[in-house]
């Protein structure tokens, strides 16, 4: 577990360093994820070693958003007088975005002949 945690942290660290040094808009952990994907593809047997730790963290992914969510409650007032307008925009646009993305996926998958299996 220590080794796989170390690998996860090392990828994140390398990602943060790359984001800072190259001035990228993409956050460090996302670059770290791509590095990790490269390692998984390059090293046979690596996936089996990091799997318990990575899956343990991912199984509780929702928990990790709780502290930020609590912070947001205190800032709800920053929505100000436009709160209702902003909330309507947010809910409707999220519904539209999910529908548009899912429909585009299904449509193009059908056209390209890459069906579900």
């Amino acid at each position, binding site marked *: 577990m220590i080794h796989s945690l170390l690998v*996860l942290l090392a990828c994140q660290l390398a990602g943060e360093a790359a984001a800072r040094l190259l001035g990228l808009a993409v956050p460090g952990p996302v670059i770290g994820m791509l590095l990790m994907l490269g390692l998984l593809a390059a090293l046979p047997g690596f996936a089996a070693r990091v799997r318990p730790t990575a899956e343990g963290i991912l199984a509780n*992914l929702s928990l990790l958003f709780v502290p930020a969510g609590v912070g947001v409650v205190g800032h709800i007032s920053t929505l100000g007088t436009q709160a209702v307008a902003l909330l309507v925009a947010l809910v409707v646009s999220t519904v539209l*975005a999910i529908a548009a993305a899912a429909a585009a996926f299904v449509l193009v998958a059908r056209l390209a002949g890459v069906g579900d299996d």
Partner: protein
Amino acid sequence: MTDLTAFWSYLSEGPLLWLALTLLAYAAGDACFRASGRKPYVNTVLVAVVILAVILWATGTAYGTYFEGAQFVHFLLGPATVSLALPLFDNLGQLRRAALPVAAALLAGSATAAASAVAIAWALGVRGEALASVAPKSATAPVAIGIAERIGGAPTLTAVLVILTGITGAVVATPLLNALRIRDWRARGLSVGVASHGIGTARAFQINPTAGAFAGLGMALNAVATAFIAPLVVALFR
């Protein structure tokens, strides 16, 4: 009574109590979710956040004090993002075959999220800084905040909108996609990840591993896409 007060001030100043309460509130949220028969609107994150907000309010605790304990949980967001490489790797074959539909869904979802949010807010009278803060709200928090700063939005407002978008996506995705009769787990996962980042991805993992992997991919891709799309959308409404 003085002993109790002294004990409370000792506990409430340290990280232990707030870390324990964060896990407890999450466990309670999860219990509510299960007891409801896994109804999507009984969202685990939402329930836990409400419980903790009430506790902080009732005890007059500052968020900074709470975060002393909660930061240990918050910190794991980074390693968790790196961990998303594993389900991506497991689905690499599927992903390669689905490159075209993934690209189409990313473009459609990312553009719809930014453009419709800004258009609706504009139509309802939102202008200026607040309007620019809405555009990147479907991207994962650190990206959205960075974009908001660049296009003249307010980072704190964007952070609030990002979290609320995530919870909205996690709550509406299942009933919405059922109503649209979309059964492809790849499409369901990817669309939720694109529209509602990590919170939507966490929800997708609760339902199906393929959906979770594609949601993680959607979140990562939209972090990049939003950096290009959000400034364009905001420029249109200036």
